[in-house]
């Protein structure tokens, strides 16, 4: 069974009157599913609605129509979700520095998750030990715990964001362009980190990106979005070998042009 399933999602940011005048939907009837242990990449050009789908899954955006099912049960916006569902879906954002409150230390950022979800807090040892281990798990020096976001590099911030998400032992990690703001060498470090965590923690990942190179490194399956619609879903291998939809072919050609140049 799918861990998370999205059915006929419709999101429109325009007012009701503008919608009646035929302003297009930002997301227009998207359905997709992520199985446990699977990494699904959502690709598409800028403005195709990828972020909006991710935010609906996370419950940060309320769709006009459609349902989000977690473990087969419909879930609403984040404030309405039961705590265990809320815990199970965490997100890593695009902007590394802005993902962390610049006035808070890494320690208090991670501790905030446990103060909110007592059931996820480490019971058998001190929080400081648990934070140190968590930071080591994401490839950071435990000394980072006392620092704040403005003194960290983009890659370090993103690792802290991942650590914050992992602190709640989630089952689905939504990554919205999580490596787009990083340079290429740091990108592949973070992607390797995610791939490793996925294996060790039974984590499903919904990975939003516009970069097909990233898709090739991390995804099991790929969903291609174009102007708010899903045009193709395929396994990563199939997609690169036999793109089905003309738009997918165009995306692949564009990516190849970039690599060749």
């Amino acid at each position: 069974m799918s861990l998370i399933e999205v059915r006929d999602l419709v999101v429109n940011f325009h007012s009701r009157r503008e919608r009646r005048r035929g302003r297009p939907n930002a997301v227009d009837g998207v359905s997709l599913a992520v199985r446990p242990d699977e990494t699904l990449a959502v690709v598409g050009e800028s403005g195709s609605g990828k972020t909006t789908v991710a935010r609906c899954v996370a419950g940060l955006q309320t769709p006009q129509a459609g349902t989000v099912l977690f473990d087969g049960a419909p879930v609403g916006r984040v404030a309405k979700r039961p705590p265990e569902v809320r815990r199970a879906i965490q997100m890593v954002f695009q902007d590394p520095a802005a993902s962390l409150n610049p006035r808070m230390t890494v320690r208090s950022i991670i501790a905030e998750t446990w103060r909110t979800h007592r059931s996820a807090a480490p019971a058998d040892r001190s929080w400081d030990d648990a934070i140190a281990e968590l930071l080591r798990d994401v490839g950071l020096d435990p000394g980072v715990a006392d620092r704040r976001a403005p003194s960290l590099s983009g890659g370090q911030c993103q690792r802290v964001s991942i650590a914050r998400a992992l602190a709640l032992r989630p089952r689905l990690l939504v990554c919205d362009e999580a490596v787009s703001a990083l340079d290429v060498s740091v990108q592949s470090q973070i992607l390797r980190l995610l791939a490793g965590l996925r294996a060790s923690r039974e984590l499903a990942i919904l990975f939003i990106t516009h970069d097909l190179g990233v898709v090739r490194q991390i995804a099991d399956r790929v969903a291609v979005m174009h102007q708010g619609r899903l045009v193709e879903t395929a396994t990563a291998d199939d997609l690169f070998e036999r793109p089905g939809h003309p738009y997918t072919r165009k995306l692949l050609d564009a990516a190849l042009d970039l690599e060749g140049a």
Partner: protein
Amino acid sequence: MSAITVRTRLWPVRLRSTPAVATAAAVVLACYLLVGLVGPLLIPYDPVATSVADRLLPIGAVRQDGTLALLGTDGAGRDMLGQLVHGARTSIVIGVSVVATCLAVGLALGTLAGYLAGWTDVAISRLIDVLMAFPGILLAIVIAGLFDQGMLVVVLALSVAGWVAFARLARGLTLSLRVRPWVDAARLIGVPTPVVIVRHIIPFVIGPVTALATTEFAGAVLSEAGLSFLGLGLPSSTVSWGQVIANGKDYLDTAWWISALPGLALTGLVVSTGLLGDHLTQRLGSSR
């Protein structure tokens, strides 16, 4: 020029707010604070103890009993120095109380409106619009006139419209802060809304709001003097510069010091506070 700022100023002269000017303003302000808070303990003054023999003594004159009236006396023979010092305390106490009330109310309502959006925002924003449609001082006059004279009434009368500026500022900043990813991350974790506002929004609002508080302090001091001048402010048992100015208006040609001294004291306080506020606005106004 990168930006054009349109802002009402409390004084007509344009003084550039350099660090030196700001430091000078801070020093002047510190002197006022010292005089207002320590002075009344050193210089006793009784507003009902009049002395006909010592009426209208000029600056530096000697009283009947041989003591020096350093800054002269008023039409009832009361010591001007004592009135200035005790008036300073009144101004500071009223100014701080009004600003504290306005800041607390404005910060709470402004961040709530900006963060919750929806009908909360509509309700609070309409209230702000309505209050902005009245001149604040007129509202204060009406409220002060409706109740008995007293410290609490004056503070409330000046706060009723005063919180609006804080709320508008806080709401605007919150609107841009609530879409920051760190706020989304907190919502995702399930951090309760009041905690999100206090921990993830307010620390980034408080800087500009503090700068505004300085400017509003000057406004509150000036308004209190205005109310007291009109006889709507504090009871005569409490010394207020506005009252002293009003007491002296019959003697403007013969005993100018009665109105002029508290007027100068008021001007000095308001201008230095305004200058410091300007500097703080520049430094903290565009904080992240």
